[in-house]
């Protein structure tokens, strides 16, 4: 039997971040090529994606880009709205639709939001953090813009694999926490490497005159990590779930404050 997608001329790619393959379907071949280029290294070969989105391209609305996003759930269906896109997603059928202009930023935002929703149910989260792998173990560097995330990974020595300089992807498989590479770029302008590793430590970043690592109280660690977690949904159940996830994470993963002077020798203290 012919697939319906083929019958109506949809072209598709599967973007797999954090081990969650998302099928994106579009009738516009230029847009598909743009997606392939943007998510290079994260294109999956899965015939059966876990999530499926049809993308309908509207006219150019680049002037409507804004940070004001609304993520709500009604009758089990998620609605994601910002000036430059509107998306619907039904978790029951794992499918949805996205209406946006042919720009890469809208689909990137939709993917980030969808992943936050998917992770919230299973104890994971996205967090404003750079992350790297060194000696098969992952390290997260958490902080808001200006804290030094991009600076840290920009100074990383050659034996360090960069997962991301902007948005870290954390999953909990029940026996521990794993960080995954993401294509969500920050100031480095370079997508992460699509690998994963168990998380060894999380560092709260601060710049200072010298390098030092200090312990911090658990409650302070939870507050700091929570303030950097990406979560957009107006949904009480998931908000509580994210809170518990961060508390559990900090309870299991060593979390410290890393004050660093921007020079390569700070990496002598990591791993």
């Amino acid at each position: 039997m012919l697939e319906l997608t083929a019958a109506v001329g949809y072209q598709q790619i599967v973007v797999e971040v954090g081990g969650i393959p998302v099928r994106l379907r579009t009738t516009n071949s230029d847009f598909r090529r743009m997606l392939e280029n943007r998510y290079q290294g994260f294109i999956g070969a899965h015939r059966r994606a876990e999530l499926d989105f049809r993308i309908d391209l509207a006219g150019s609305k680049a002037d409507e880009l804004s940070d004001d996003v609304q993520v709500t759930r009604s009758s089990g269906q998620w609605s994601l709205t910002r000036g430059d896109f509107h998306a619907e997603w039904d978790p029951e059928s794992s499918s949805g639709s996205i209406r946006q202009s042919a720009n890469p930023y809208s689909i990137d935002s939709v993917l980030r939001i969808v992943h936050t929703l998917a992770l919230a149910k299973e104890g994971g989260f996205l967090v404003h953090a750079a992350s790297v792998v060194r000696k098969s173990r992952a390290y997260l560097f958490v902080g808001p813009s200006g804290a030094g995330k991009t600076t840290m990974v920009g100074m990383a020595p050659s034996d360090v694999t960069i997962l991301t300089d902007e948005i870290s992807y954390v999953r909990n498989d029940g026996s521990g926490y794993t960080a995954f590479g993401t294509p969500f770029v920050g100031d480095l302008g370079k997508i992460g490497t699509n690998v994963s590793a168990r998380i060894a430590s999380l560092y709260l970043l601060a710049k200072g005159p010298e390098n030092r690592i200090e312990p911090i109280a658990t409650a302070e660690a939870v507050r700091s990590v929570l303030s950097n977690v990406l979560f957009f949904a107006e949904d009480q159940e998931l908000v509580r779930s994210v809170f518990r996830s961060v508390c559990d994470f900090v309870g299991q993963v060593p979390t410290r404050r890393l004050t660093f002077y921007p020079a390569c020798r700070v990496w002598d203290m990591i791993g």
Partner: protein
Amino acid sequence: MNRKLYVARSSDVASRRLGDEMLIMSGRDSTLFTLNEVAAIIWEAADGVIPLEDIVVERICSQFDVEPSAAMSDAEELADELSRHGILLLSEEPISQSSLPQQERQ
């Protein structure tokens, strides 16, 4: 004669005791609250059944060097503030326990 005041944790929150502090996340608006050691004791005891006055006398005044009247005044102020944020329920009658969230400790 003063009427009794009953306090109960809202079911719209998630909370976790971390050391001496209690962190509370409002599910409504994602606001994060931090309670100190004494306030955390009141929060944990706020089961909707024990009057606030009894919580203060039995769990605060018995552990800390504080006058009952001063402790009660502070406790009422705390309860009012948490109530205004919608994370604590206040009533002059006992409050049903079915709506109370589970307490977590780490």
